[in-house]
Structures are given as C-alpha cells and as structure tokens.
C-alpha cells in the first residue's frame, strides 16, 4: 500500500530526527560547560569578595599574616615545585614582581602540597625573591577557594588594596595576561 510505505518512510525520518536532535542537544550541553579561553577573569569592584584573613608560615619559617598586606595590591600565586606549568611560569612572575615593586604591588606565593626544602631549592634556582607560605595541608587554598574558583595549580589571584579579589588567571600566567590584569586593578583604584 502506497500510504503505508510513505508512512514508514516518514516515521523512520521522524525517529532519526529525534535522535539527531537529542545528540545535538547533548553536544551543545557538553560544550557549554567549557570556559572561553580568555586567559584571565577580571571582577568589577561591585562583584569582588573579600579574602578571609589567615596566618601561615613562610618557607623559611616566619609567620606571615595576610592582613598585613592591606593597602597594597597583592598577587597571590598558587604553585608547587612538583608542578611543571608552575615551574615554567615562575620566571615571568619573578620579572613582573621586580617591575611592579615600586608601584606598590606585592607578590606572595602559596606553595601547595609541597615540602619547604623542595620549594626553596626551586626559588633559589629561579631567583625568586618574593616570599611563599607553605600550604602542604591546603588550608590557605581552602580559605581562597571560598571567594575565587581555584581548580588546581597554577592559579594566580590579584587582590586589591582593600583585600578583595579583583581577578585571577587560571593555568600558567603569561606576561601579557598578568600585566593587563595588574594594569586594570591599578587603574580602578
């Protein structure tokens, strides 16, 4: 019967269309979860969260209180001597820390899941002069992850003069990304 044949063809097409639409929807959903690769995130002043105050021990054993940085822009870098992208971004951070020192920008490393011995061996070999706190137990990371999404190392966070998170770089920091971010923060305050 002609009508029945046509009906079968149309029905198969309908089922195929449903399958295709579902597959497409799922593909779009899957892709939607990815971040656009802008390199960094900048928060306008109204959307900034304040970093909880903490005290931690530096790699050389002196206590560092985060509140003592109030009034300065702080670049907080989460790193580890075992982390390859952290090692490769370190010279860039070192250069920027020297450049911005005179402009009231401090750098502070948070050495995650590491031993002070390993970390100091690295900072010595790269020539990093800014301090790092030991965070082998992830407590500083936990403090920061309440106000900014840290999904691993390296992550570089810029804290403004009032102690609020002004922006962050996920993954290895490039000179241009951090330079732009620091420029934005310096302009807004």
């Amino acid at each position, binding site marked *: 019967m002609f009508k029945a044949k046509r009906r079968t063809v*149309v*029905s198969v097409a*309908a*089922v195929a269309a*449903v*399958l295709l639409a*579902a*597959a*497409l*929807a*799922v*593909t779009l*959903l*899957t892709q939607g*979860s990815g971040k656009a690769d802008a390199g960094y995130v900048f928060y306008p002043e109204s959307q900034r969260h304040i970093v909880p105050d903490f005290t931690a021990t530096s790699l050389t054993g002196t206590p560092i209180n985060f509140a003592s940085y109030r009034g300065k822009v702080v670049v907080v870098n*989460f790193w580890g*001597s*075992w*982390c*390859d*992208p952290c*090692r*490769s*971004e370190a010279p860039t951070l070192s250069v920027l820390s020297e450049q911005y020192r005179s402009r009231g920008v401090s750098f502070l490393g948070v050495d*995650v*899941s590491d*031993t002070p*011995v*390993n970390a100091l*061996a*690295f900072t*010595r*070999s790269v020539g990093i002069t800014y301090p790092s706190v030991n965070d*082998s*137990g*992830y*407590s500083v*990371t*936990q403090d920061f*992850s*309440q106000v900014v*999404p*840290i*999904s*691993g*190392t390296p*992550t570089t966070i810029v804290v403004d003069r009032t102690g609020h998170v002004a922006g962050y770089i996920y993954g*290895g920091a490039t000179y241009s990304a951090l330079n732009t971010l620091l420029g934005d923060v310096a302009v807004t305050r």
Partner: protein
Amino acid sequence: MTDVHTPRESASGETEATRPFGENETEPDVSGSGATAGWPRWAWRQLTSMRTALVLLFLLALGSVPGSVLPQQGSDPVAVQQYFASHPGLAPWLNRLGLFNVFAAPWFAAIYLLLFTSLVGCVVPRTLRLAGSARTPPPRAPRNLLRLPHSASYASALAPSAAVDAAAAVLGGQRFRLRRPGAGDATFWVSAEKGYLREVGNLLFHLALLGVLVSIAVGGLFGYKADKLLVEGQQFYNNTTALDEFHPGRLVSGSDLAPFRLTLNSFSASYFTTGESRGQPETFHAYVTYSPSLGAPARPYDLQVNHPLSVDSTKVYLIGHGYAPVFKVTNARGQVSYQQATPFIPANTGTMTSDGVVKAPDASLGFIGVFVPTGIMVGGTLESVFPAPDAPAVSLVGYSGNLGMNSGVPQSVFQLDTTGMTKISGSPHLLLPGQTWKLPGGRGSIAFTGYKQWVSLAITYDPGQVPALICGILALVGLLLSFLVRRRRIFVRAVPSGTGSVVTVGGLARTDASGGFEDEFASLAAELAVGGAAGGPASDSREPSNQSETGA
C-alpha cells in the same frame, strides 16, 4: 515493567460488569487523526513503547562495550596516548567517534536520554491510568447474575429493597466499596468491589520506578567522585586543588564540595603470617582525624575497608594503600634540594613490591626506584617476600641532567622523562633505611631516611543514593501488593417473589492465580443468605462453568 492490563476482549453480550477491571475510559482512536498531528504522536508512541525501551537498553549495553575494551581518556589518559602511538591510522577515527571517551560521547548520552524519555513516557501515562482506575466505582450489576463465573441465589422473606439493603450492610461491613442504583433505576441491586490495594500497589510500583529514575538523574547531576592519595601525617581539605582526581556531576562546581578537613595520623595493615593465605591482608586501619566543617573540632575515626567515613552525607572510602619511602637529595654544592616522603605505587599487591620515581629537578637528579617491604637478594635481584615492612629496602637507578620539568607540559609525578638525562654509573644501587648513596663525580647524594605509608581514598557524594534505595524498596512493596491482592466484585440483585423476594448473588475475580476466590465467594454467599434472613441457606449454588472468562 509489568503489564497491568489484560488485553481487551470482545465481551460476549455481557454488559459493563465484565469490562476489564480498572478500565472505564476508551482509548482514543489515533489512526484517524490528521497527518500533521498524527506523526509526532506516532513517534511518541513508538518511543515510549516497551520494545523501544528494550532496544535502547540493549544499545546502551552495546555502547558501553568499547568503553571497557578501549582505553578511556577519563580513567587512563596515558594508555590513550599509547594507543594513538601504536595505532596511528585507526586511533584518530576512533577518537572522532568518541570511543576514547564513550561515557561522555554525545551518541552515548543520546541513547541514555532517549531511554530515560522512553521510560518516563511509558510510566507516566500508566500511572495516571492506574490512579484513575483506583478511584473508579464498581460497575452496575448485570441483569443476569447467574451467567457470572460464580453465582448463588436464595429466597428471602424480606421485600426486595430491604433484602438488598441487608446484603449491602453485610458487604459494607466487609469493607467492600458499594454502588447502588441511580435515581431512574427501578430495580433492586447493589454492586460491591474489593481489592483496590492491587491498584494502589501498581500505582506505588510505577511511581517508585519514576522515583528511581529521578534519583539516578539527581545523583548524576549533583554528585561527584574524587580520589586522594594521602601520606601519614598529611592533611587535606576537600577542595578541587587538593583532590588528585575529580569527576563532578554536570551541575557541580568546586564551591559545592563539603569543606571537611581530614588528616591521616597513621595506617596499619596486618597480614596472615602462616598457612596457605600467608601474605594475604587481614585488616587495614587508617586512623584519621577529621573536622566536618571549617573551624569545627577534630574528631578521630578508624577508617577501614567497607567501613567508610560519612561527613555531611559525603562518603570517604579506604580503597588502597602503599609505601612512601622518605628521601633526602643533596645537589653538587651540598644543598638539600629534595626531602619528602615519596609515594610508590604497588606493582604487586601480594608482596607490595612498589615502583616510584624521585624527581629533584633543582639538583638535576632523578631516580627510578623499587621499594620492597621485606627484601631479600635472589641471584643479585632484590625481591620482596612479604607485604609487611619487616626488612624494607630500595633499589635506585640514578639519572643526571635536565628532567624537562620547566617546559610547562605537565608530567606524571610517577614517571621520569630520561630523554635529556644520563644514567649514573653504579646503578642500580641498594639502600637500607639510614643509608646514603654518594653519587659518583661529585653530583650530590641521595639518602633513604625511612618510610611512611599512604592510603588512597575515594570521596563520593551521591545525593540520589538514599532516595533510589527507598524508591527501590517501595517498588518491590508495590509489586508484591499488585501480585498478592486481587480485585473481586460481588453483585446482588433481588426480585419480588410472593411476600418476600428471590436474591441472586454473582461474583467475579480477576487473575485468581493464587486461588481462593471460590471459597471466599461461597462463604460470602452463605453470609449474605443468613444476613438476608428468614430465607434459609442458599437454595442453589452453582460452580463456575465453562462460561466466558471475560475480564477475569
């Protein structure tokens, strides 16, 4: 799914009394509707049919086969790279089809979603129909009750209306649902129906099934799984930075994790020392302390296999253990460049012979090592004979040069890239705890200062687990109810006869699989006769004959 409806048979002359139990509405006729409205409806009916659900279930099973045959990106990315290297022609095509990440592939999700839609589309209309049928009153009493599978009659001294009232009282007392004649009906009858619990059971089963589906979906969207390797003396917070592997559900973000803190104070394992099971593990204890939330006081817990820690409905399981030898590496200038407990991975869980690497990039030194908890030398080779740390030793192969760790490309912490390095003479070198290997050529030294143990933890949060269990139990209860309870109808009609009346009783049961309705009917009929009073016992009681079983 159970099929709750018997196929509709053409009732042979009988009225609505024998319509299938629980069906009073007629199915809408879809064949004659306009083509534009018909196709989507037809496609929907096909999708929600049992056959399609089974085909999709089969496809789901078939689709997961490559997931277990081929290496998967999510679980073993290194193996995927190796597959690409060994099958350069085939691998890109497999990759295009998503076969290296089957469970995240769009086609796999399409099957899953269609199956879900199919099941929901199948269950929801059934649920609505069942809910309707559970509320339906019994049908009108048929004219000739003697034609029903079970029937009886007796004479009563009461007038027809009083006789039917008496019967209704008896049936009502037995918790039958009753229906009496409408205003325009001049005959005397009562219809009674019992066993609605069957429909309730069916309803419960279908609703619970929906609940299971929703629970699984909720678990998949809001749950997560993570792994963490933790060395004795170390602590971590449950955040994405601290976790080694993190597999979140689609709607989970890092800030959704319960922020507990956990410290591994010590780990102990005991092994059978004699007999056939020598070397087999006997007990594992991971002594931990944890704080359920930030600033909360720490509590101790003895974490064991199959004895997980539950924090804030997040479960922490002990899934593995191993040894972490402690090394101290000094560079050529005598500065300590590396000092830490280095987790080694068991290559043989029977003897706990473990492999690992020591990377001291800032001393330009790297070591590939084997740790044995109870080591003996067999023909110049170090072997472990027992999993407990009775005579620990390490054997190290040293390399000097650039470890390639500053290129920015992430390496595995368990692998040493020796391409830019040269092997140090004197390798392999055996070290016992406390011993130091002074490397030739003044390159520095490595000391094996002791060992610690580590545990691997699985951290899971599945908000759908408990609801799924509850719904599963409810589904079982519903299924049992629908199997064990049967729906049955009793009809009573009275006609005037002299000063009294003749009362006929008819009975109908559905799926009398477990039997017993015959007896129930007989005793009920007798009771009605007594209740109808003064007429004496049943004068005529017929056994079920070869009459039509319509609706039964």
